[in-house]
Structures are given as structure tokens and as C-alpha cells.
């Protein structure tokens, strides 16, 4: 039943993609209504599924259905769907954001020459993303993983005439591929050991101890590589800021709310795979990412770049949360982040649309009068991401910090305290740069009067999604259902029978003790960040330029994004290209050279033997011929052609013979 709904949720966008890609241009309004309405139907179905799943109110709720996809000898590869509370939540998030983004795009993309194609790609993405959160096995998740990658590629490079866009698309796909190959090797490893791709079966093998030790750690880290790529974690985070070359609604949907969260989902879905060692690495990576991205966001001037780095930073939070065992907190943040970050991007899209595709905040200012709805919703989202109490972002971020502190208190290691400290400092940074962006965009005096004058509030297809998302941003954090339903899976769940009950004991108990401290600190840092931002950008008490001049080196370092792109360009990219050129040269000159050399040697040899043949062997033959010829030439003199001469000679010969005859007798 529920499975059938989910099957339709996944298939409907695929159908609309197929129709749209082949016939989109010929449909009325270029077919924009089709994918959009399909997504709203999907949202409805997702709500029904969520309703059915949550009505059981069981954290262990699971429905799985699979069919045998490929049977080869003893190997059976099954493919199927797994629906639990997490999937239901993800389905809801994806369909909600996707449908709102579809609606928003109708206004935003109006008049684009490839308008119908755009909606086709959005459908393709929705299909892949919905599949990703529903499949029940590693191979399946890898397949949808790649498919979201390719839809992301198509959408980032949507305006492919721009060199920067096609570059960004290529970069996104390739950087992701690096992570994906790690994930693929992880899948190879898992399959080699467990002979199955199915999540539950793999986890069962882990629970039974068949799959353990260093190999399990390795498998976990390798699978996590996929998440590092897709969720733009350090060191593979470089693609996400560039991905902002895509249309802004795409950034909202793919590069903020859903696809980039797939990495977090992956870690959540395969949580039991990660050993303590693997989790340490995951927590470290998440924390480093959160910090680095936040520092870069502080100096960015492009409104979308600020949001992009903010996204990376927030994804780092989620990953770090999972790494410190804050399973629920990480996924909770995934959900709230999806709401407010989609809202921020769509808000930014609305601003950019109003400013005629101007993204530089130095050209904005004072827009709150011109774009009231956008301003209010943007403000709500900014407050949410900054951790202002009462909004959804506050609850989830607070849960993460509490989990980090709880883990630190539990283990008592410096490592975990450092993680907590970094995260809480980053929370302050987040509040600072987000409010900086808000003040620069909406407050102060217009810095580009001409563009300001032409700015206007967006049409209702664009403001309605803003309002809807704002609503979810406000209410998303309330209620305890998330905490009660999305519970950290334990190995015991996947072992058979008796051990089942032990599963429930392993809750996130430790976090509660740390809750109060974390909450106080987080509020403190959030307001500190907001206050400093206000000092610089609202009250203009201090000049940001002065600070940047004073710390010029640091400023340049941050402005250049820690020189990651340059580093990769100089090493990985140039290295590969050089290697490929060297190999190409090697192939042409050496390998083919040997082949051609062999050919030339053979020709030379044949020339040599040809000469010998001409001069020596054939010479002998010719010499014989020449001797015979000389005799012939000499004797021909006798051949007078005169009959009488011949007769005379015959007579002479006869006489001669006769004389000899006589002499002999």
C-alpha cells in the first residue's frame, strides 16, 4: 500500500520528465504546468505516506519491498524500496521544496529560451532524489546518487553559453565523481564481504559480527567519501560555490535543500556501518568544513556565494553531528536547514530577479522598502540560521551543539572538546555573516540608485513559495515527533530476535545533560555575532574596509577561499592533464614508435636483402646469361643466312669427319 504510493511518487516525475523532454516545447505554456502540478501531486502523496507512516508512531517502523533484479549463478541482486520514518520525512522535504521551487521557477525563468528544458531537468532531478531516499540497497543508492549528480550537472550548466557555467557544471560532476569512486570502492568492499547490497542484510552481517574490524572501518570511510563529495565536505567542497552558476531556484532546490543533503542522508541511512574510528573522522571532517566555509562566507560579496558557503558550513554541522553520534540532531538540522536555506536562496533569487540579475551585494542596499515580502521572509530565515531562539534553526542547531558537547563530556577527549568549541564559534560566525548579508542587501542606502529604482517585488508565483517556506521555517522546530521517530539505529535492530529490545535502550541520553550549557552558549554566540554584524553594517560604527586592510593577509586568504581552487588546479587538475599529455606522447612516440620502428626495421632489412638479391644472387644468374650471350654473339657470325654457305660448311664438316675417321682407322 504505502509502497505503491512511494512507487508513484518516484515514477511521476520520471513520466513528466519524459513527456517534457520530448514534447515540452509543443505543449501550451511550454509545459511548465505539467512538472509543477506533478510535483504538487507528489507532495500530496508524500503527505499521505507521511501520514500513514507516522500514524503508526513507531521509531522502528519499516516497510520494505524488493524484487529480484538480476540473478547470476549464486548471486542475486535485489532492488527495492525501504520506507521508514526517515524516508517519509525525506520524501516530504524533497517534494515540498521541489514543488515550491517549481512554482517559483515559473516566474523566475520566464522567457528563458530553454524554458521547457529547464522543467524537464527539474523533473529528472526530483525523480532521482526521490529514488535516492527510498531505495533499500547500496547499489541502488549509488545509481540514484549518480543520477542526481547528472541532473545537477545539467542544471548548473543550464546556461551553457557562459563558459563559467559549463566549467562549474563539469567541476561539480568531476569533484563528485572523486567522492563517488570512493563510495563505489566501499560498495565493492561491502559486496565482496557480505555478498549483498541490501542495507538490512549488510547491517545484519555487521550485527552478527561477520563484517567487522578494519575492513568495516574502511568500508565506512569509503562510503562516507560519497557523502564528502555530494555534501560538499572538506576537501571536496570546492564545487558547491561554483555551482551557483546555475539558476537560483536550482541552487535553492539542489545545492541547498535536497541534493547536497543526500550525503547527510547517506550517513544517516547507513549509520550502523560506521565504527568509532570512522565516526571520529566523520566528525572531524564535518567540523573542519563548518569552520572553513564559515570563515570564507564572512568576506564574500556575492549574495549567492555567501549562501553557498553558508550551506557548506551547515552541511558540515550536520555531518559533525552524525560524527559525534547526534543522529537525530544531524537529520533534524537537515530538515530545518532545507526549509530555511531554500527560503534564503529563493529570497536571494527574488532579489536577484528584482535587480535584473545583479548578485553583488555592493550594488544593493535598502531593498526592504522595495521588496517587503522578500525582506520579511529573508529576515525570518536569517534569524533561523543564526540560531535566534524560537525558530526551527535554533532547535536543530542547539541539538547538534548539545550532542557535540555531550559526546565531549562522555569521552572527555580534547578532540571532541575541540569539535564542540569550533562548532560553537562557527555558530557565532554564522550569525555574523548572515546578518552582514541581510544588512548589506536590505538596509542602508541604495548603493546603485538606478538598479534600485527599477527594482520591484516579484510576482505571486515567487512570493507564495517564500511565504510557505517561511511558515515551515517558523514552525519546523516544534514538537517532539522528530526526536521520537527518527531514532539512532543500533546494530541490535538488525540482529534477529532477542537482541531487539536492547535497541531501544541506546538513545541519545548523553546529550541531555549537556543541553542547557549548549543552549546558553549557542544563544550567546548567536547574539554576539548579530551584534557585531550590526555594529559594522547596520549602525556603521566601524568600517569593515578598515578591518580588512588591517588584516590584509588574512583577508586575502579568506577572499581567495583558502586557495583551495588554486591548490587543486595546480596539483590534481594540472597533474592529471600533464600525465595524460605525457601518456599521449608516450603512446604516440614510444609505443607507436616501437611499432613503426619495427616496421622501419623490417623495411630496412628487406631493402638490404633486396640489394643482396639484386647484386649477388641475381648477379650470378646474369653472369651465366652473359657468358651464354657472348658465345651466342660470337657464333652468330657463322649464321650468314645463305643456304649455300651452310651447304659448304656441311660439306666441309663432312670432309673433316671423313678425314678424322680415316685418321682414326
Amino acid at each position, binding site marked *: 500500500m504505502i509502497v505503491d504510493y512511494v512507487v508513484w511518487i518516484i515514477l511521476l516525475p520520471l513520466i513528466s520528465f519524459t513527456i517534457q*523532454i520530448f514534447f515540452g516545447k509543443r505543449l501550451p505554456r511550454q509545459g511548465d504546468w505539467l512538472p509543477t502540478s506533478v510535483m504538487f501531486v507528489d507532495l500530496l502523496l508524500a503527505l499521505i505516506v507521511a501520514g500513514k507512516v507516522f500514524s503508526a508512531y513507531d521509531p522502528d517502523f519499516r516497510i520494505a519491498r524488493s524484487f529480484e*533484479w*538480476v*540473478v*547470476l*549463478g*549464486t*548471486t542475486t541482486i535485489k532492488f527495492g524500496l525501504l520506507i521508514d520514518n526517515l524516508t517519509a520525512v525525506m520524501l516530504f522535504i524533497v517534494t515540498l521544496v521541489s514543488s515550491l521551487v517549481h512554482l517559483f521557477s515559473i516566474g523566475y525563468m520566464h522567457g528563458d529560451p530553454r524554458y521547457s528544458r529547464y522543467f524537464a531537468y527539474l523533473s529528472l532531478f526530483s525523480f532521482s532524489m526521490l529514488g535516492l531516499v527510498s531505495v533499500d540497497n547500496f*547499489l541502488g543508492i*549509488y*545509481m*540514484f*546518487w*549518480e*543520477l542526481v549528480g*547528472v541532473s545537477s*550537472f545539467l542544471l548548473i*550548466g543550464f546556461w*551553457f*553559453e557562459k*563558459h563559467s*557555467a*559549463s*566549467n562549474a*557544471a*563539469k567541476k561539480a*560532476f*568531476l569533484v563528485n*565523481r*572523486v567522492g*563517488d*569512486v570512493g563510495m*563505489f*570502492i566501499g560498495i*565493492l*568492499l561491502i*559486496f*565482496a564481504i557480505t*555478498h549483498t547490497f541490501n542495507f538490512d542484510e549488510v547491517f545484519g552481517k555487521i550485527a552478527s559480527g561477520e563484517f567487522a574490524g578494519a575492513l568495516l572501518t574502511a568500508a565506512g570511510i569509503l562510503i562516507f567519501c560519497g557523502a564528502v563529495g555530494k555534501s560538499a565536505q572538506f576537501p571536496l567542497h570546492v564545487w558547491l560555490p561554483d555551482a551557483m552558476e546555475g539558476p537560483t531556484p536550482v541552487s535553492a532546490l539542489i545545492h541547498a535543500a535536497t541534493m547536497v543533503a543526500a550525503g547527510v542522508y547517506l550517513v544517516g541511512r547507513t549509520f550502523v556501518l560506521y565504527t568509532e574510528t570512522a565516526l571520529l573522522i566523520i566528525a572531524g571532517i564535518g567540523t573542519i568544513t563548518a569552520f572553513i566555509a564559515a570563515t570564507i562566507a564572512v568576506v564574500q560579496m556575492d549574495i549567492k556565494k555567501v549562501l553557498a558557503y553558508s550551506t557548506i558550513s551547515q552541511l558540515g554541522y550536520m555531518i559533525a553531528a552524525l560524527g559525534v553520534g547526534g543522529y537525530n540532531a544531524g537529520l533534524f538540522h537537515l530538515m530545518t536547514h532545507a526549509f530555511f536555506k531554500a527560503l534564503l536562496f529563493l529570497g536571494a533569487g527574488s532579489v536577484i530577479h528584482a535587480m535584473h540579475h545583479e548578485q553583488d551585494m555592493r550594488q544593493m542596499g535598502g531593498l526592504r522598502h522595495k521588496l517587503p515580502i522578500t525582506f520579511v521572509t529573508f529576515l525570518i530565515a536569517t534569524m533561523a540560521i543564526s540560531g535566534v531562539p524560537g525558530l526551527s534553526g535554533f532547535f536543530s542547531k542547539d541539538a547538534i551543539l548539545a550532542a557535540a558537547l555531550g559526546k565531549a563530556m562522555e569521552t572527555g577527549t580534547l578532540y571532541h572538546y575541540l569539535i564542540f568549541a569550533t562548532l560553537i564559534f562557527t555558530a557565532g560566525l554564522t550569525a555574523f555573516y548572515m546578518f552582514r548579508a541581510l544588512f548589506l542587501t536590505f538596509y542602508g542606502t541604495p548603493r546603485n540608485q538606478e538598479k534600485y529604482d527599477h527594482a520591484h517585488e516579484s510576482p505571486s508565483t515567487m512570493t507564495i513559495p517564500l511565504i510557505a517556506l517561511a511558515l515551515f521555517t517558523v514552525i519546523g522546530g516544534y514538537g517532539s515527533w522528530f526526536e521520537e521517530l527518527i531514532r539512532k539505529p543500533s546494530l541490535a535492530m538488525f540482529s534477529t530476535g532477542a537482541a531487539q529490545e536492547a535497541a531501544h535502550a541506546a538513545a541519545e541520553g548523553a546529550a541531555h545533560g549537556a543541553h542547557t550549557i549548549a543552549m546558553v552558549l549557542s544563544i550567546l554566540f548567536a547574539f554576539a555575532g548579530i551584534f557585531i554584524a550590526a555594529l559594522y553594517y547596520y549602525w556603521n560604527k566601524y568600517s569593515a574596509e578598515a578591518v580588512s586592510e588591517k588584516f590584509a593577509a588574512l583577508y586575502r586568504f579568506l577572499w581567495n577561499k583558502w586557495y583551495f581552487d588554486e591548490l587543486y588546479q595546480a596539483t590534481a587538475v594540472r597533474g*592529471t*592533464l600533464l*600525465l*595524460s*599529455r605525457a*601518456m*599521449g*606522447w608516450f*603512446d604516440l612516440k614510444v*609505443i*607507436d614508435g*616501437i*611499432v613503426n620502428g619495427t*616496421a622501419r626495421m623490417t623495411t630496412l632489412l628487406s631493402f638490404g636483402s633486396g640489394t643482396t638479391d639484386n647484386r649477388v644472387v641475381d648477379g650470378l644468374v646474369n653472369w651465366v646469361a652473359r657468358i651464354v650471350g657472348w658465345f651466342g654473339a660470337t657464333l652468330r657470325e657463322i649464321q650468314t643466312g645463305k643456304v649455300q654457305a651452310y651447304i659448304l660448311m656441311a660439306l666441309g664438316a663432312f670432309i673433316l669427319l671423313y678425314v678424322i675417321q680415316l685418321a682414326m682407322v
Partner: protein
Amino acid sequence: MIPNILSFIVFLPVVGMFIVLLLPREKKTAIKVVSAVFTGLQIVLAWQIYVNFDTNTTSMQFVEQVKWIESFNIWYFVGIDGLSVSMVLLTALLSFIAIIASWNIDKAVKAYFALFLLLDAGMMGVFVALDFFLFYIFWEVMLLPMYFLIGIWGGPRREYAAIKFFLYTLLGSVLMLLALLVLYFNVKDPVTGGHTFNMLHMMDQANHTGILNQFNIRLLVYAALFIGFAIKVPIFPFHTWLPDAHVEAPTPISVILAGVLLKMGTYGMLRISFPILPDAMKWEPFLYGFVTLAVINIVYGSLCAMAQSDLKKLVAYSSIGHMGVVLLGMAGLTSLGMNGAVLQMFNHGIVSGMLFLLVGVIYDRAHHREIDGFGGLASQMPIYTGIASLAFFANLGLPGLNNFISEAFSFLGAFGSEAFNLKVFTIIGTLGIILTAGYMLWTLQRVFFGPLNPKYVNMPEVNTRELITLVPLGVLVIVLGVYPNLVLNLLEVSLNNLVQTVLNAPSVLLGMQ
């Protein structure tokens, strides 16, 4: 069910060839139509074979066995199992498509189509022959038309490329002939006790006599066969004929070359080397050498592809990389890897065929193949770009398209091999996944993205004839990506049997060295 269907499918093109030869030289359209009809009939027969093929038996099907040259015990012996049926289907499909793609050939039309049909017959013959001598004959029959097709209808350096191709392949043939003779004289016919060319008898280790029971000799024979087939695959370092042949060959011939001829190398290994000399195949120095070459093929081929500036050369090197995946899948001797490898042979035939056709489309219009010489074609030729993207993404192993499954299975099989430890090799091999994505996307970007090159503002979109060649392949790319069982069902039983045979083959002989 048509009796003697295999003979029909092999010799139908020969009949077509004679009809083409009888037609007057000026009737170009008639010649083309006759060729298309005969290759089309071949597809009908192939479909018959597909429908009537029993997927549950390991034995040879549609067998025909007639004495041919009695004094040497040579038989006209044909039959197919799961391995060959996939190749027969592929050959029939690609031959027809290549004929359609040859429609704009204008030089010596009669000779071209006659030679092409002969080539077609040779290829079919190779895939159905079960008598080693017959196999060898078809192998050589195929060589000559190919030489002329490249050498006459090719590009500017066609003579060089054709001779290189011919000599290289001939070298392989000679080695194969040596191995063939050793096998002939040392395998006894279980019925008569005499010498035999029968491959099935050769596969039965009990029939091996004489020097074939010496391990060193077995290794030598295996090595000779290996090099013979490696040249066709082609395996590094025997691969350099391929880029030249591809660059110079006309588009349809490139399609056949990449789609069918390359498969003969790996087909030969699976049909002959592995089952006849399983212990030599499993001998560790050989096996790890084999895998090393496979990995070199993948990484090296991909890196070389990245360095190319000629589109056709890029696709040629990409073929080298993809054939490396086939080798890797075969080497692990697991059912998953073996099925993946043969599926990859099939899939690569489709995708590389498509890629060469796509290159042909723009080459016909722009008369050059420089990757950097295009740019922005996406805005001028949206349909073409769509199809090209499909092929490019299939080639880089995008899930949902055919190459993904076969590559994944090959890697899975090699990695999970229990007979040998190929894990490190496989991990290095997966680098190919990144590299392939790298050069395919880079090419996609340089050819299709960016501002439209002003030279090509009037470049016409793909025409109907080109679509007829591209669309069936494109459909297969998607269908086999989603439902690979269409081909896997055919392969499975035979290949599992092959894997078991090779795995279980007595390594007693190993002790006799």
C-alpha cells in the same frame, strides 16, 4: 524455426555480395538497397535466434556439423551458446546500422558494399564457428575486406593505417595458427582417435595428449593465443593500430571496428584460450600479468583519451579503456564478473558504435574532427546534442544507462573474486571511472557548450537517415541500462558454466612442470 539458421545468417551476406557484384556499377541506389535488405534479413534471422534460444542449457544450440576436408578431419561445425549468441545479435544489429550509415559513400559504391557484406559474413562466421580451422578461416576472411575498406575509403593516411592494421592482425593470426597446429596434433578425437580441430573436443582436457601434457608447452600455446587475441582487443602495448585505423576508417567501418572486431579478441579468449587451457590461464604469473594489463588498459587508455584533440582518436582510446574493464571482469573468474564482462562487450559495442556515428555526423558537416574546433553546438543542434549527451553519459558509466551495469558487475566480480586477490587492481581500475568522466565531460563542454562557434551557425541538425542509425542504439542504451536481463538471460547459464569449468579444471598439470 528455420533449419540451418546459422548457415543462413553467415552466408546470407555472401549471397548479397554476389547480387551486388552482378548489379551494374552505376545502380548505386540498387546496390545500397540490396545490401540493406540482406543485412536487414540478417537481423530477422538474429531475432529468430534470439526468440528460439534456449537460455537454460549449457550445450551448443542450432548446431550444424558436416564433414568438410576429410583427410584433415576438418568439419563445417557451427553452433552457438550464450556467449556467442550475444555477439551474433550485436553483429547483425551493427552491420545493418553500418550499412545505413554507409548511404553517403560515393566512391566505388559497388566494391564497398560487396566488401562490406563479405566482412559481415566473416564476422558472423567467427562467432558461430566451433571448428578451430573454420574459426581461423573466418578470422582471415574478415581481415581482407577490412584492409580494403580502410585502405580505399579511408582518410588521408589510409594506406598507412590499413597496412598497419593488416600486418598487426596478421601477426596475431600467425601466432594463433601456431597454437592451432599444436592443438590439432595433440588433441585426439575421442571417436576416431585421430587429430581434431573440434573446439569442444579441445575443451575436454581428457583429450589432450602428447606435448600438450607438458605444462611449459601449454603455457607457450596459451601465450601465443593470448597475443593473437590481445592484438584484436587491443591490449596494451599492442593497441596502437587501433587509433590509426579508427581515425582513417570511414565512419561505418569505425562502427564495425569498435563494435564488433574488438570483441573478437575477448570472444576468442573466452571461447578458446580459457576453456582449452584453463590451467595456463589460472597460472598466477599469467593471471596477474593479465590483470595488470587490464588495469593498464583502463588507466592508460583513459589518460591517452584525455590527451587527444581528435574526436575519433578520443573515442578509440576510450575503447581501449573500456575493453580493459572487460578484461578485468573476465579475470576474476566469478559469475558476476564474467557476465559483467560479456555484457560490457555488448554494451561497449552499442555505445562506441553510437559515439563513432555521432562523430561521423559532425565530420560530414564540418569536415574536421578537432575537439577545440567546435563549441556551442548545443544551441545550434539540440537534438544532436541530446543524443550525444546520452552516448557520452552512457560511456562514462551513468547509472540507468547500459555501461554502468556491466562496468559495475565487472568491477564487483573482480573485486570479489575468491580465486584470486584482485582487490588492489580493481581499486586502481576504478580510477578509470573518474578519468572517463573527466575526458567525456571536458569533450562535451568543448564541443557543445560555450558560445556557438560563428563558423557553424548554419550547421544543419541531424537528418532522418542519421537518426535511423542513432535512435535504435540510443533506445538500447536506455533499455539495457534499466533491464540488463534482456542480455544477461542469454549469457548467464553458459558463462556460469564457463566459469565453473575453468575454476574446476584440474590443476594437476601444474604439478607436472
